[in-house]
């Protein structure tokens, strides 16, 4: 049965999209499956936004557009810069994208090398790289793991290191794909506290509705490649008709 989409408006603060502005983004995968059907959204400095929706709603596809890994039709603007081929490196330095599986995110033999990867590729001098790596590991409270081998870590530890690998690039927007998936309660709690304390604008896709309620003042609901609701989390989580229509549950 096809789902009818009526974009629901909820009252929220004015935002001109100074960190991120996506306008009418369309994307189809090479096999013809269309994943994004006109997505528009705006993020402002300091926003912590949850991106929810059923599997296959296009959340991950949207995230891959935010620093130009996929290029669909439509506009993506990061900090006022229109995303083009030429400013891709600059935009990738500003949008820190953390993938769902930390085994894909952590590809270097040691933790230090992984966290240093981003800053090194930005062409920073060695002393600056070391300072940033130490600061990023400090921010996720993993300083003691600096010289450990990535494949010897637990999933929770890997997730935190994965976040450090983009923090070291000092991004202005943090984009996380299902950060709490597969974590035990304690690791999940550590992660939530970590995300709460990070003073960065973030867009987080998740199925963890309890985390959404606790952490994110604003929620965007996606389904079938569209934004179907965008507003204050407390309003959206109270709207059970909306949640049920898009395969979500009230926590």
């Amino acid at each position, binding site marked *: 049965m096809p789902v009818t989409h009526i974009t629901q408006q909820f009252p929220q603060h004015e935002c001109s999209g100074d960190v991120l502005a996506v306008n009418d983004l369309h994307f189809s995968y090479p096999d013809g499956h269309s994943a994004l059907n006109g997505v528009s959204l705006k993020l402002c400095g300091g926003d912590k936004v949850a991106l929810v929706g059923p599997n296959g709603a296009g959340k991950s596809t949207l995230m*891959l557009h935010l*620093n130009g*890994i996929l290029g669909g039709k439509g506009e993506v603007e990061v900090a006022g810069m229109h995303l083009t081929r030429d400013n891709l*490196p600059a935009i*990738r*330095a500003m*949008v820190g*994208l953390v*993938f769902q*599986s930390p*085994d*894909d*995110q952590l*590809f*270097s*033999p*040691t933790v230090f*090398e992984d966290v*240093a*990867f*981003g800053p*090194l*590729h*930005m062409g920073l001098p*060695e002393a600056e*790289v*070391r300072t940033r790596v130490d600061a990023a590991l400090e921010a996720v409270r993993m300083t003691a793991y600096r010289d450990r*081998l*990535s*494949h*010897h870590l637990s999933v929770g530890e890997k997730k935190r290191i994965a976040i450090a*690998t*983009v923090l070291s*690039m000092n991004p202005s927007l943090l984009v996380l794909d299902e950060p709490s998936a597969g974590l035990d309660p304690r690791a999940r709690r550590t992660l939530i506290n970590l995300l709460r304390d990070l003073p960065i604008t973030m867009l987080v896709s998740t199925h963890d509705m309890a985390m959404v309620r606790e952490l994110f003042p604003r929620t965007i609901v996606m389904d079938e490649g569209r934004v179907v609701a965008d507003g204050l989390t407390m309003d959206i989580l109270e709207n059970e008709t909306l949640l049920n229509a898009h395969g979500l549950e009230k926590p």
Partner: protein
Amino acid sequence: MHFDAFDRYHEKESFLHRLDPRVKVLVTVVFIISNALLPDGAWLAFGFAWLFVLVNNLLSKLGIGYTLKRSIIALPFALIAITVLFSIPGKPLTTFNFMMMDLTITDMGLLRFVSILIRSWLSVQMAILLVAVTRFPDLIHALEHLRIPAVLTTIIAFLYRYLFVLTDEVFRLLRAREARSAAVPGSRSGGGVVWRAKVAGNMAGQLFLRSYERSDRIYNAMVARGYAGHLYTLNPHEMRSADYYATALAIAIIFVTHLLGRF
């Protein structure tokens, strides 16, 4: 589950562990080359080379017999050289019949076979010692410093990082098959050989697809952090004077050993 069977590094505090990885790689390679170039039957040189291995074993504090025990695994590979027993002309020692062929072992053949066996056995021990006293990332750094092309060192680094992930993947596949390999009471479990081969083939295909898709995701993760075709690394290694002395001494010993074998 983590599968760490490939990690051969042994954490210890010793002179060899502290040595710069470049020195260790260089000395090992020189040792192996010198060994391979020794003439047949250079018993004195073989003896000294073995002494060199033993001393290094002691220096590593892993125990004098450490590499000897672990070198046994390489023995079957040396059997590839068994044909030289019969194929080098010389004085016949004995003849026996094998699958309707008369095979004659000659004295020259025996000499060469034993020499090859000793050479490979010494080289393997040295290599085993190298990976036991050097952390793998340091080994890769050492190769980078010794001007090995970045493409090769990168491939080795990725191989090392994802070997574990792939092994986990294989075990997950095997476990999934095991969990569903049931049998109805009274009937034989397992199916036909062809069917089982097909299942195994599908599993190999699955593994390839999963690895392929994973490589795509890893590439995306690299690109997202600024990768544009060239890898940069910081390297924390610096040669100290002790490293230079150790290199000079080790190379000198190997050189003298080699001369002993030549004359």
